[in-house]
């Protein structure tokens, strides 16, 4: 500990977020907090003053922040949002599983696995290259229009399928980054112990890889949680669509605010959790590293 603090005084800490920065915050804590508080109050006060005194504000308030409309829009927006949440949870489970399989296939080595690897890379490249909304429209309207016998037509099912496919491609790359971040010696040791390629992946590489990429995966959660709403293009009455219907009916945007609040209620805690987890993980690694 003494050695570390001497490094701090010389101003050569291990990094921006390392112990040096923490000690600076501690020293200037009270004064810094006061300045931060005052400047925040002045800044927010100024922004609010500009907004609230502008000529357009009464109209904006009537159109966007209208309590009567909020109450009227709330039940349908909430029930639509509940569909969003259910879609999100189901899709996330499928995405995590499918993406892991794709990433593991891509991480296999040796010429024998070339066709599989090619398949995985092609899947990832193609799917990541297509805008998600296009994929939803293609699968949601396009595939059922073929009227193939035995192929389901549900817009909800196909919309979710498009989301799962698209996010699986991205998430597979996240996993891959994780697998590649595990030191090569780990793979070689495992192989020299007599583990097969698949066993090496399953018992040695993937468990370490997942730990490394949990923040990135959580980041994907936050993103998906909002993107599920895109299935509204297929006519599905989820939260955003319900808000739009209310808006189209009344020409009032407060329903959008209701939907915004609902999405924030889920995504902000998720984002905070991601940050907290990332921070904790980094601190743990530093302890191990030091």
């Amino acid at each position, binding site marked *: 500990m003494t050695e570390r603090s001497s490094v701090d005084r010389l101003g050569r800490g291990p990094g921006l977020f390392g112990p040096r920065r923490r000690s600076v915050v501690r020293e200037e804590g009270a004064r810094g907090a006061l300045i931060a508080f005052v400047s925040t109050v002045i800044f927010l006060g100024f922004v609010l003053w500009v907004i609230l005194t502008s000529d*357009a504000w009464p*109209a*904006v308030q*009537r*159109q966007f922040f209208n309590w009567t409309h909020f109450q009227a829009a709330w039940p349908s927006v909430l029930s639509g949002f509940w569909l969003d949440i259910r879609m999100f949870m189901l899709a996330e489970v499928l995405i995590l599983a499918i993406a892991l399989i794709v990433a593991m296939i891509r991480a296999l080595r040796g010429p024998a696995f070339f066709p599989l690897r090619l398949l995985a890379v092609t899947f990832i490249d193609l799917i990541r290259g297509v805008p998600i909304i296009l994929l939803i429209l293609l699968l*949601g*309207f*396009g595939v*059922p*229009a073929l*009227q193939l016998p035995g192929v389901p*037509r*549900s*817009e909800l099912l196909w919309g979710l399928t498009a989301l799962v496919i698209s996010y699986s491609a991205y998430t597979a790359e996240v996993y891959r980054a994780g697998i590649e971040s595990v030191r090569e010696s780990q793979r070689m040791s495992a192989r020299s112990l007599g583990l097969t390629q698949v066993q090496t992946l399953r018992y040695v590489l993937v468990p370490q890889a997942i730990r490394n990429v949990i923040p990135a995966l959580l980041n994907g959660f936050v993103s998906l949680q909002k993107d599920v709403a895109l299935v509204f*293009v*297929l*006519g*599905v*009455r989820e939260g955003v*669509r319900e808000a*739009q*219907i209310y*808006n*189209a*009916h*009344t*020409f*009032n*945007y407060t329903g959008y605010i209701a939907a915004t609040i609902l999405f924030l209620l889920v995504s902000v805690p998720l984002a905070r959790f991601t940050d907290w987890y990332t921070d904790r993980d980094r601190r743990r690694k530093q302890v191990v590293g030091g």
Partner: protein
Amino acid sequence: MRTRPNRLGKYVVIVTVLTILVAACADGAETTTTAGETTTTEATTSTTGLAACTAENLNLVTPGTLTIATGETAFPPWVGTPDEFFDEPESKTGFEAALAYEIAAYLGFSDDQVVWERTGFDEAIIAGPKDWDFNMQQYSITEVRDQVVDFSVPYYVTTQSLIVLEGSPYAEASTVEDLKGAKLGAAIGTTSVDFIENIIQPESAPNVYDENFDVVSAMNAGQIDGLVVDLPTAYFMTAVQLEGAVIAGRFEAAAAEPDEYGLLFAEGNPLVDCVNEAINALTADGTIDDLIAEWLEQGGELTTITG
């Protein structure tokens, strides 16, 4: 600290210069319009006899030009024709485009003084100034909407109709009761959505799509049993967009609230009075009826769905 008064001084100079410039521009504009006014007022008084509603007196976004907004893609039979003039309001084809030029002519605009803008259906409703004089894309006049924007007097009254695929069990529907089990669809912002929910009241809530052509896609995908749309659009859809689809019937007028289309203006725009005058005159002299006959009505008997 010493730099501050200097800086302030600089701002004062800039603001003053700008003010003078703006004032100068405004002066220039004023003189030209007054000059124009005297000449054209005479001209229009002789034709319409209403000095207040002439091109030069109107409250316009761009002086001297009538800026009209229509849909981001504007479909026949409202704007353009299915083939040659598709999505071309300048062609004066399609009911709304033709009517727009009649209104413009009544107010004293020549054809090339009419400029078309495109907006989404929803975005036309945001509070604040607009960059068009009025918006024309089958906006139904409703009380709630009227609180936020202004509408002209109605220029068309429509009824709702049901489209199904040939051979559908709902093709023979004759009352609203027959449709209780149907999965229906309609485009957002249309009164068709309200019509389904309030009048038909099917067991499952209707799917609601961005645009009419998305409803068509869902129909082709077999995701909905039928779609509800205003009758003129139904003619276009069954003729052009939907293979193997038929109009199962028009809903009895008594069942639907009278669905009246009006031009949409920014709240409080005084232009609405002059446009109303134009629409009333065009209704009185039969021009609008002629346009309806030309663009919106097609022969053939339709089932009336009662209830």
